[in-house]
């Protein structure tokens, strides 16, 4: 397993950082949406490129086609955030942002704009909060559609990638009592993994 990248202490710390970060994200999202958003316990894994798609399938529990919106984030630690849901359920993504937040919008939103909006809010909250724990302030790029109905294998193009290892952090969202879940995955490649590792060490030393 490529999990040798982190020591056991670092791994525990990273899991704790993810827990804290996503907790903060949930609080901020609930504040913004005025609704209780249920966030899963984040899952953290280091995988080789060849296993990345399989890891995504396991983490999301999705085997079929997905709709995926991607967004880059950049600081010393950089990577991409993906918001993923089953293709047929994309319309329900908007429901996550129902309630007063949506009602305040008298201007009609196209479905695509709504999808990008929701994806941006979810990844913005989670990535910012997570990197905040690591003492980094990221800059984001425009969200873009990776595909409306793609297989998770198509997310990674192994031949094209300039890295061997990736750090995946997965968390999923649902409104209370709702079956529909949207997944957020942060992907960070090798170079960033070293920066994460150093940031964890700095954090551990400061305790």
């Amino acid at each position, binding site marked *: 397993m490529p999990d040798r990248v982190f020591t056991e202490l670092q791994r525990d710390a990273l899991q704790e950082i993810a827990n804290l970060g996503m907790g903060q994200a949930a609080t901020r999202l609930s504040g913004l949406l005025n609704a209780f958003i249920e966030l899963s316990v984040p899952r953290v894994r280091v995988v080789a490129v060849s296993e990345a798609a399989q890891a995504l399938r396991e983490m999301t529990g999705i085997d079929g086609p997905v709709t995926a919106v991607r967004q880059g984030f950049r600081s010393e630690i950089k990577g991409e955030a993906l918001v993923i849901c089953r293709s047929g359920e994309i319309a329900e993504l908007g429901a996550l942002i129902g309630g007063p937040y949506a009602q305040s*919008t008298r*201007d009609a939103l196209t479905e695509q704009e709504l999808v990008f909006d929701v994806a941006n*809010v979810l990844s913005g909250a989670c990535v910012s909060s997570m990197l905040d724990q690591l003492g980094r302030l990221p800059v984001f790029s425009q969200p873009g559609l990776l595909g409306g109905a793609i297989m998770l294998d198509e997310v990674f193009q192994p031949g094209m990638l300039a890295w061997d290892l990736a750090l995946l952090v997965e968390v999923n969202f649902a409104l209370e009592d709702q079956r529909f879940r949207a997944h957020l995955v942060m992907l960070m490649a090798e170079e960033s993994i070293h920066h994460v590792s150093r940031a964890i060490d700095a954090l551990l030393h400061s305790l």
Partner: protein
Amino acid sequence: MSPRDLPASPSTPSAPLPLSLSDLVVERVGFGLFVLDRDMNVLMWNRFMQDHSGVAAADVIGRPVFERFPDLPRAWLTRKVESVFQLGSFAFSSWEQRPYLFRFDHDRPITGGVDYMQQDCTFMPLMQDREVIAVCVTLSDVTHVSIMQREREDAVARLREYADRDGLTGIANRRYFEGRLADEFARWQRYGGEMSVLLFDLDHFKKINDEFGHVVGDTVLRAMAQRVAQVVRKQDVFGRFGGEEFALLLPCTPLDDALHVAEKIRHTIGDAPVEVQGVVVPVTASVGAAAARPGASDYEVMINEADAALYSAKRQGRNRCVALIHEPS
């Protein structure tokens, strides 16, 4: 003036305030930059915004942005800014979903074909001590990108059109025809009903080519395709199958009705000769018809049956229509 000569940020407020390098950059940079507080008051407004809106910084700073720009999508913009304050994260707006935020002119008023400057906007949190103190909005002019994208979409649509058409006659080509036939057959398999296919062929076409030359032969093909195209129904698919052979797909049409259509086509082709470069060329056609019937595994069975009927029409002396009738088993 070298950067060294620039005074450090001013410690005492004395007018006029010397500008820092970053102030100068913000002033002259080629995209819009403005800053909003949580109540949507403008805190900063750069030259790009001033030049394009006609509203000077002094006239908008310290006031709600909607006061000078009542056309802005108020609820939407307020929500975007509020989300940045609450999440401490970025927000975006793309021209592809929302063509513009401000009604600005662009520099292709004649050749552009778009009404206002197409804009990509980024809403960026300005942080101090881990708190969002204001939101900086950057506005990029992406008019040229939108024009290029539209041109590309047009080109793709034209290519798709070319890819589906037969170059000589302008009607559907065989690839497109078979695609539609496959779709229609699949629909018939699922929902039942009726569907038929006609295959027809200009009689003794080789002789026309030999006698009058290929230019005349091609003109005859074009003229015949045009005549037939005028009598087929809108829902039918008319294509060139190859050489002098044509095909007509008739959805929701039983074999009897297909034979009526076949007769109509035969008359359309044969009733009047074609005149090419002063030469009068008489043309007739033979038509084979077949209908989808239970048990057929795919659409090729229909094509083969129509082809057998066409062959039979040729053998019976040409210039006639023949349908392949199956005895009910």
